[in-house]
């Protein structure tokens, strides 16, 4: 039985990961803002086989409370094997372009709050010399594009930060898994027209759980995105600035 801390537990991807862990009989500590939803998710996971579920509701933008939350989780679970950080918002690029306040708010949620969590978790795990930290970044972080560079650059920060953290914690036997999903089809987008690259959260979560089991470094989901982003990354800036992708 593993002890898993899930931060942003109400997100579609996190919920599906939690279900897979529940079916294995793991013990889960769920953190998110919506208390009512957390309660139903917790009972759902319990019914599906989780050894135990604990809920902790907090606004993850309140960085000052991160350390207390982690201490509480560690105390409740008695030890943490795996952390999944899955919270975030899909920024509205057009609004952000016109609003500094909104842009900074997106950076706060999608990057700074995660970096705060990672800093604390890294220190805890480095001392006990074990554990796996998985963070959901995005393919959007690989190169800034005009259609979503606010979201993209916040994810770029996560990708860079976890890359450095992975190097630092390698000696301490702590794995850092950077997860880069592409387009994910959640119930919210169920009726939108989908291209070939859209995948279901069930698919993404199965890959995430596997990547965590295997202590992978960086995973693109589906893996075809690795190829796509590699090509996008090598386009010279001089050409990139003129094209629509």
């Amino acid at each position, binding site marked *: 039985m593993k002890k898993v801390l899930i931060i942003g537990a109400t997100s579609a991807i996190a919920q599906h990961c939690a279900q897979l862990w529940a079916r294995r009989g793991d013990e889960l500590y769920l953190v998110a803002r*919506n208390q009512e939803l957390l309660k139903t998710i917790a009972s759902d996971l319990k019914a599906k086989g989780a050894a135990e579920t604990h809920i902790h509701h907090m606004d993850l933008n309140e960085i000052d409370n991160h350390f207390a939350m982690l201490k509480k989780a560690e105390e409740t679970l008695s030890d943490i094997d795996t952390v999944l950080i899955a919270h975030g918002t899909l920024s509205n690029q057009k609004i952000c372009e016109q609003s500094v306040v909104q842009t900074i708010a997106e950076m706060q949620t999608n990057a700074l709050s995660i970096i705060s969590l990672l800093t604390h978790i890294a220190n805890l795990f480095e001392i006990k010399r074990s554990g796996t930290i998985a963070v959901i970044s995005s393919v959007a972080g690989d190169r800034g594009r005009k259609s979503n560079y606010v979201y993209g650059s916040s994810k770029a920060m996560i990708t860079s930060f976890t890359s450095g953290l992975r190097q630092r914690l390698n000696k301490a036997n702590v794995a850092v898994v950077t997860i880069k999903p592409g387009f994910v089809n959640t119930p919210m987008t169920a009726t939108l027209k989908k291209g070939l690259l859209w995948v279901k959260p069930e698919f993404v979560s199965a890959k995430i759980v596997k990547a965590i089991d295997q202590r992978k470094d960086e995973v693109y989901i589906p893996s075809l995105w690795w190829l796509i982003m590699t090509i996008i990354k090598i386009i010279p800036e001089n050409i990139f600035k003129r094209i629509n992708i």
Partner: protein
Amino acid sequence: MKIHGWGRYPKIDATLFYPKDQSECINYIKKNSFIPRGSGKSYGDSANAENVLQSLCLNQLIKFDKINGVIICQSGITFRDLISIIVPEGWFFHVTPGTSNITIGGAVAADVHGKNHHKKGSFSNYVLSIDMILGSGDFVSVTRDNLPDLFYATCGGMGLTGFIFSATIQLKRITSGKIFQSTKIFKSLEEICESFEKFSAANYSVAWLDTLATGKDFGRSVLFIGEHSDDENLSMNKFKSLNLPIKLGSFMINKHTMKIFNKIYYKKNSINKENKYLIDINNFFYPLDTIKNWNLIYGNSGFIQYQFVIPKNNSVSNLKKILKKINDHNQFSTLAVLKLLGKSNDNYLSFPMEGLTLALDFKLSNSIIKLIKFLDEMIVDMNGKIYLAKDALMSENTFKKTYSKWKKFQAVRIKYHANDKFVSSQSKRLGLL
């Protein structure tokens, strides 16, 4: 955004809302006039409206009592999701329809039936209680004893009485993930109808009918009988489903190709006159679920699944009249499924009643719409009725003549502040105002 039912007709421009919890539902319900929608698998327009409350995010299992086989779940969870949880523990649904992609909320609202209706009745017979949100925003728990009028109106009530938030359902014990299936062929309508009576002890029975065969082949059919295996092995095959580029094949659907297809299908089943084999529970109940988008086979225009039930008296001669009418109009049904239904329940709008039910698939066209008007009249004369979960065309007049408890139903809607809140394209068409 344009939405439609499984038959892809009719379509409507709708605004969709996906609540994540009870308070979001209550806020929405207080402010809007709308229809709840689950997976959108009802064929016609029963989940169509300008405002739609999509229940798909409300998909949590609240409690699973593995000892007594009782589940409490939110309305947006699908049969597919539940099967993977309950079957390995030795439980199954008492009643399941022919697709696992529908939600529990939809199953209650349409009071769906399956291949065992003659033995077990319909889905709502195993619903122990429903937690629902009324038009006033009040949250109530409804059972056969508590607010019974609302219970009997909500089961089979097409989402028109309130929003089904969660439900408690009694499951059935199984000891195997397999079904023992046998097939038998019959050469005439008389024979197949008699066979339903003859095999009425069987738990599951349903027949495929070749409606394109004429002359001496008229009425040829294949009966499928199923029983739960008792091999003590609860494992299931991993469920796989695919999207196929099936629209490309829609030109293949015409009278000649279907005639050939039906002939091959019948011959294939008649090679061994008595065929018995063990098949996976998913393959037995949900054969079409493996192709996620099979409804696209009829192309962009969509299709109508026309399902009616007629009383047992004179059912064979009445069935012949209906098939003749279709033929006289030079139309054809691509797929026809025949089944004997058992006794009706106490719900106000549930479809099943004792008699024969036939489901026919028609590729949509103006002439089909015209034909269905004639068929509706015939069904009224035969004291039958048409299934609301598949209906897209029935007139107010036909509905009110065939659903005898509609006034009682409407009175419940008014009593619980539902009539101006829970409104679908279908309820407007049927004059439930």
